């Protein structure tokens, strides 16, 4: 699964991961029994790749632990949605709580892992994922800042380069920040990047070598 040669775009390096492969990769790195929040968008795909019996418990910030998969036709309950307002289901052992208790859980460092999308991540682990900074954009933050600072580990899932070819791993975020120094690991289509106190380390690459990668990034990559 880690380095299958699935080209997902023209001109892309062979071996680059698609979003489902990235999600599968994240899922494999989540220890059994973890309490996890999956952010809106791509991170929700991670749920589909968690092995049965993993005992991973999903949290949704609108007030629930042990959230089940998206509701199918006939299962939809308007009182039961995830943070993206998509109807979901309840697993045995679920618990409901109000918003202050839910965010206390997040902000108090009780979630083991949170997986978020991002516009940019800096080499120091700063995260930008809530605001494009465009002057006419209406700012909307939701729970992004709370998730960013709260979980024990923050994983980001994103493509490593934007559509215009610019890297999304940057020396300094140019988009407005969500949180400072909060990201632990970045899962991208081309590499898994650990943000460490010493710097950024590419622990796995997909269809590209670390040297090739280093050439395309302004953030230096640790080599050992």
């Amino acid at each position, binding site marked *: 699964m880690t380095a299958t040669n699935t080209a997902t775009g023209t001109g892309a390096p062979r071996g680059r991961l698609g979003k489902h492969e990235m999600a599968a990769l994240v899922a494999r790195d989540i220890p059994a029994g973890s309490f996890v929040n999956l952010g809106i968008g791509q991170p929700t795909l991670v749920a589909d790749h968690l092995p049965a019996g993993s005992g991973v418990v999903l949290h949704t910030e609108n007030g629930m632990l042990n959230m089940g998969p998206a509701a199918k036709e006939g299962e939809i309950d308007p009182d039961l949605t995830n943070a993206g307002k998509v109807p979901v289901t309840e697993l045995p052992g679920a618990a409901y709580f109000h918003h202050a208790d839910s965010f*206390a859980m997040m902000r108090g460092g009780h979630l083991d892992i949170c997986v978020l999308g991002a516009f940019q991540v800096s080499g120091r682990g700063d995260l930008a994922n809530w605001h494009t900074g465009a002057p006419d954009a209406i700012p909307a933050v939701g729970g992004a800042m709370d998730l960013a600072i709260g979980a024990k580990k923050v994983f980001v899932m994103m493509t490593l380069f934007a559509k215009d070819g610019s890297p999304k791993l940057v020396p300094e975020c140019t988009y*407005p920040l969500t*949180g400072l120094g909060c990201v632990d690991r970045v899962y991208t289509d081309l590499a898994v990047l650990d943000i460490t106190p010493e710097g950024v380390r590419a622990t796995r690459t997909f269809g590209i070598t670390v040297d090739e990668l280093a050439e395309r990034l302004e953030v230096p990559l640790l080599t050992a």
Partner: protein
Amino acid sequence: MSTRFFEQADEAVAGIEDGSTVLVGGFGMAGMPVELIDALIRQGAKDLTVVSNNAGNGDTGLAALLAKGRVRKVICSFPRQADSWVFDDLYRSGRIELEVVPQGNLAERMRAAGAGIGAFFCPTGAGTLLAEGKETREIDGRTYVLEYPIKGDVALIGAHRSDRMGNLVYRRTARNFGPVMATAATTVIAQVREIVETGSLDPEAVVTPSIYVDRVVQEAQRA
């Protein structure tokens, strides 16, 4: 004082004054007190500050209140949605103020108002746009932002059941902001699906005790 029960949502929202801060429960449609919002539109109070997670969807409910020009300011975490065209238009034309607050701060600031906390140091948003101009402090090596309570004059919330004393229970994720807002407003008005006899709710499972609930009205129309 004892919770009062009303037959009509219009009676339940009587007396809301111009200039009030109104906390409005719900996350998406779950827990949204639609009938109370509709009654507030008919009631006519204006120059309102609305505190809610979102800033209205489609053309009904909160969006309809906004469309009538009754709202001076929205305090919310996520105004920008696919169907938030009413708010978008008001905001872009400078006809409404917006304070964007991280969702957890929104909840915690209302909790603080309800719990008698004067202010609190919170890690969320430190170093970001949303903390600009706010007091910060380093505590044990971490940067915190000082956040103040958000207190409502009125809270409009949706719950599942009330007993005849006004004890409330919610259902699934429709619980969301309701219990917090119920602690944070001077007058708390709940729309419920069912009113049950006192003694029929499990005292271990009451989420909002009657002390927080001023007025209750049963929904006229169930979704």
